[in-house]
């Protein structure tokens, strides 16, 4: 690596095209400079379709108790969770439920697309629309770099589509303006991509990982040669290109050095990873996400859990999520939702259990992780955005006063009501991004003088 040139690049002012080192490379440099590695903050975003009905995740003890005009903030550890969520009972000290935050600045209907984590209005029925900024999950990934900075895993693609397998673009997460995060829809391919440098179902991935070094070396040599023929005033552009490949070289060698660690934590390969049963594919993606976090391959994973065209057949459900949302099928919507909630709770509990089993610092990995379960269509199949429920598992490194709490914010339009923009601002602030407000403001609230547009102070430590 040529640090001198890179340092020069950093200082070189390139106007609007100024590029920065990727967070990962910066971290590697810090480590090289002898700065000790801190325990990273880890995040898993689990995005379900068709809404999370607020009542469905509200403990019976709190139903109807909260007034609509003030913050209801109670200890969650002493009450029972709704029965479909019983798998999460053992994690209640690390569990939190946040309700009542509005997101009217996002699109309603089947999906808010990038709005859910980007806090703005975008898209149509089938089209995800424009990406105007990095979504909050990607912002958190930037703050917690790793060899795979932000992993996207999907069971289904766009909200209304039968896309299946391979690289997918569900339209919910973006790493920057105009740059959607790619999701891997095939667990077997994801397995190779994440763990292939150390283990593999065949020897294929391992070999191609090794050979990739030849390509990177070739590109670096080639670009260096060409640079000599380029006018000096244009070297910055060529250097940017060269720099990008050098970064990949660094990642390559980092992964090579992690081989033991990766191999030790990779899930055992089984036919789970090639299953066509949706519920099994969900399990497979959860396994991969958990193992990738434990192996240190990534600190942030976003999982596209399902879409409205998916049917939970293995759970005995005979109607797709869209039908359920429209009250079709042989059972009531509520019954269907309970069955699905139970299944989701089990997936989340398994992940939490595995993280809890790994000691870290004074505690375990779950203490330093936040698993955030949310929906891209807020509170219902056709989301209204009036409230956007979140279920959170994990200690989050103690950066927020959340674990073990149940919070319900004042109703939309009431004094003291707050928005999902405030929520994501809180997370970003707590984990190192000092942004004053993340996202678009709710103009109606603003006009009526009850938009706070800032972090939720009561959550900050």
């Amino acid at each position, binding site marked *: 690596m040529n640090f001198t040139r890179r340092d020069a690049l950093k200082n070189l*002012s390139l106007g609007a095209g100024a590029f920065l080192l990727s967070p990962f490379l910066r971290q590697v440099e810090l480590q090289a400079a002898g700065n000790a590695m801190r325990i990273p903050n880890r995040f898993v975003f689990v995005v379900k379709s068709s809404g999370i009905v607020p009542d469905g995740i509200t403990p019976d003890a709190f139903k109807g108790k909260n007034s609509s005009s003030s913050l209801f903030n109670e200890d969650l550890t002493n009450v029972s969770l709704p029965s479909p969520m019983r798998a999460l009972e053992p994690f209640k000290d690390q569990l939190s439920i946040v309700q009542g935050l509005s997101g009217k600045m996002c699109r309603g209907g089947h999906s808010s697309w990038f709005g859910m984590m980007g806090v703005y209005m975008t898209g149509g029925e089938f089209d995800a629309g424009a990406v105007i900024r990095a979504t909050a999950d990607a912002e958190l990934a930037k703050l917690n770099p790793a060899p795979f900075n932000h992993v996207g895993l999907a069971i289904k693609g766009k909200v209304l589509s039968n896309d299946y397998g391979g*690289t997918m673009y569900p339209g919910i997460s973006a790493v920057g*303006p105009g740059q959607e995060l790619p999701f891997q829809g095939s667990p077997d391919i994801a397995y190779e991509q994440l763990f292939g440098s150390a283990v593999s179902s065949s020897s294929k991935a391992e070999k191609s990982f090794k050979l990739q070094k*030849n*390509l990177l070396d070739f590109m670096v040599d080639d670009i260096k040669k060409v640079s000599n023929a380029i006018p000096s005033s244009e070297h910055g552009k060529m250097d*940017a290109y060269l720099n990008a490949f050098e*970064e990949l070289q660094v990642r390559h060698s980092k992964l090579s050095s992690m081989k033991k660690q990766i191999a030790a934590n990779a899930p055992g390969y089984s036919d789970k990873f090639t299953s066509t049963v949706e519920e099994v594919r969900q399990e497979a993606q959860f396994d991969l996400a958990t193992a990738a976090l434990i192996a240190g391959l990534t600190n942030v994973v976003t999982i596209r859990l399902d879409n409205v065209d998916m049917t939970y057949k293995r759970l005995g459900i005979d109607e797709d999520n869209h039908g359920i949302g429209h009250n079709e099928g042989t059972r009531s919507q509520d019954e269907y939702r309970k069955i699905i909630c139970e299944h989701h709770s089990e997936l989340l509990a398994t992940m939490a259990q595995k993280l809890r089993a790994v000691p870290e610092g004074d505690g375990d990995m779950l203490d330093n992780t936040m698993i955030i379960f949310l929906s891209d269509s807020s509170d219902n199949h056709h989301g209204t955005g009036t409230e956007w429920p979140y279920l959170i598992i994990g200690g989050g490194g103690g950066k927020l006063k959340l674990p073990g709490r149940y919070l319900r914010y004042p109703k939309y339009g009431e004094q003291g009501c707050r928005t999902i923009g405030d929520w994501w601002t809180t997370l970003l602030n707590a984990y190192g991004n000092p942004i004053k407000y993340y996202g678009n403001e709710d*103009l109606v609230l603003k006009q009526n003088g009850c938009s706070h547009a800032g972090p939720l102070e009561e959550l900050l430590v």
Partner: protein
Amino acid sequence: MALTVVWLSSPNTLMAQADKKSNPDSANQKAFDETVAPFLAKYCADCHGEISNESGVVLSSISFDLASGHDLEHWNTVLRQLHLEEMPPRESEQPEQHERQAVMLWINAELKKSGNVSDLYSKLESPSFGNYVNHEKLFSGEITAEPFSPARLWRTSPEVFSNVKSSYGKAAKDFRQPFPLEDKVGIKDYANLLFADSAVVSVLMSNATSASDELIKHSPIASSETSPTDDMLASAISEHFRKVVFRDPLQEEISNYSELFRKTAKEGDNADALRLVLMAVMLHHESVYRVEIGLGEEDSHGRRMLSGTEIAFAIAFALTDRRPDAALLQAAKTGKLNSSDDVRLQVARILQDEAIAKPRILRFFQEFFGYTQAHKVFKDEDRSGGFAYYGENYPAMYEKDADFFVMNILEKDKDVFRQLLTSNEYYIFNRATFRNTVYDFYKKNQQQLDAGEFPEAKQKELLQRLDLKGWHELNVKYNLHNFNKGFNGSVAAIKQIVDEQYSWMDTKDEDVLSHRMQALYTKYPMVYDLRDDEQDFLLPQPYRRPNRAGMLTHPAWLIAHSLNDSTDPIRRGKWVRERLLGGVIPDIPITVDASIPEDHTKTLRERLQKTEKAECWRCHKKMNPLGYAFEIYDDFGRYRMEESLGKGDSKPIDAKSQLAGSGEKELDDEFKDALELIPRLAESDKVRQCMIRHVFRYFMGRNEMLSDSKTLISADRTYLESGGSFNALLISILSSDSFLYRKTLEPAARYVP
């Protein structure tokens, strides 16, 4: 330790001060004492001394030990103010050009010693700084320099990538756009602003991976166990290279790739090796950057002309977003792309050939006017009285209407700029327009059609009524989505529409059936001041709309330049000042609270009086008066006489104001509203020249320099002599020395007059 100097009193005390402190480079000190200190004392001290610290800037204690990194911020500001001639203020005594230069040279040299460079020069290359090049000088004819563009790399545009993608076929299934442009208003694709950094490379890598996986499936080399011969390998490499890089590989390149293959095949197999080679070719720097360094001979002015091939690519990318067509490449190969006249012929050929799509031309007007931002300004549906976002997105459709407004004027190609600013011939297009016209056509020809007769002449008539050159244009024009996408003009297709018309409109009333819109579109024409019951959407169009004058009163433009819940006089005024009058408005100071006070008893204009305080008005006087002209339209683009204040109250609109500081005496006058202001602007030489400057920027991918003066003057003259032909203007610009010649210069050197 910082060396502080005091120059307020006299250079003598200054030296005395300096002597007492540390002793840096004495040559540096000498230069400072002889040039910089007297300059600051003479021109800056009055306002930026300790007592009169105007705008909080105090230069009396500035350190001249800049080379050690002291007061970098301040010196950068001084450099910028001097370069842009913003300081000393116009009304004060002005330094001689050589005095200014000397101080700037000193600052630049000291900055360099400190290991920094000023960001001024890269900023000057960004679109928002284009107007800082003096307009009067540029068009005065006094500049005799021979024009050129800097030798450069220019990142591949997103549109070119999309077209390249199609040449990969199935292998491009998972391709993503590696070259997104920032989604902002104005001309975006500037050669100097765009880089291929790691974000670009990560997308390129994943594209290359998926494409090569697919490509090796069909390669005999990959499936063979035995090692390919050198010739086999070379031919496979060349074939792929031509497809991706658009030229034959050099011998050296072939041997490099072959070496990569051999090395990798030893560690893996043929398939692995070929896969890497294919990827390496796809990652070739020329597929990322267009190289325009000027491969011709150097002339007596130190410029080198682009080679024939370079020119072929430059022309093709300027107009078509595609690689050069066969005729261009042939011309390059046979030496017929060696002069300005050669280029003129080729550009004229492409412009005349209707079969060649030239999407770059319309995109210029979209970026220049900025009307394609309309769909991003969200309006509350309840407040709008019928604006729709679901099912159909009204603002996005108004943008298309505006496209047709532009295309109609371009098609006539006469007096183009004036027409764009003043014509009231609008298109009001949507799916219902299309359907009603088909229905009307059916009714007029019912007997014949019912008998199954549909002679060719009649079919042509339908095409003409729909304003189409062929059915392939149908979806482009009417955006039919899934509903009538397959419409092919057959009798069956017409009858299907007639049936749908009956069932969707749920009536047999002929008048309603051919003149009204189905529910989804009923409110669509409201922004054109049409009531629900006075709509007539039969083609052919355009329609003349009263109380409108050109693009700046088009709903798409008005919405794009509005806020979510109100109009935006400041931004509209800024637009006119910058795009039409060549004015410069500095960024909003960070200390300013830019919010407009809420008050339900006042109009927006009244509330904006906040900006008339002296320190605000210095800049706002350039914007607000122009923006007020457009207050005769609400934020949906509807013409209005009154502004509603909420709770049922309203006040009359006051759009009267005056234009000042335009630089043209005839323009500086009072006006009643936009409808009086705009025709005056359309008559102005300066406005026309400003528009030409923007055309230049877009097609050159950079700001103009003073040395481009000859190119611009000649472009302006050509435009006038051709009766306002945009095509003639384009030919002039694309065959100019600015377009065809290159010179290697460091950024800072480009701006030294």
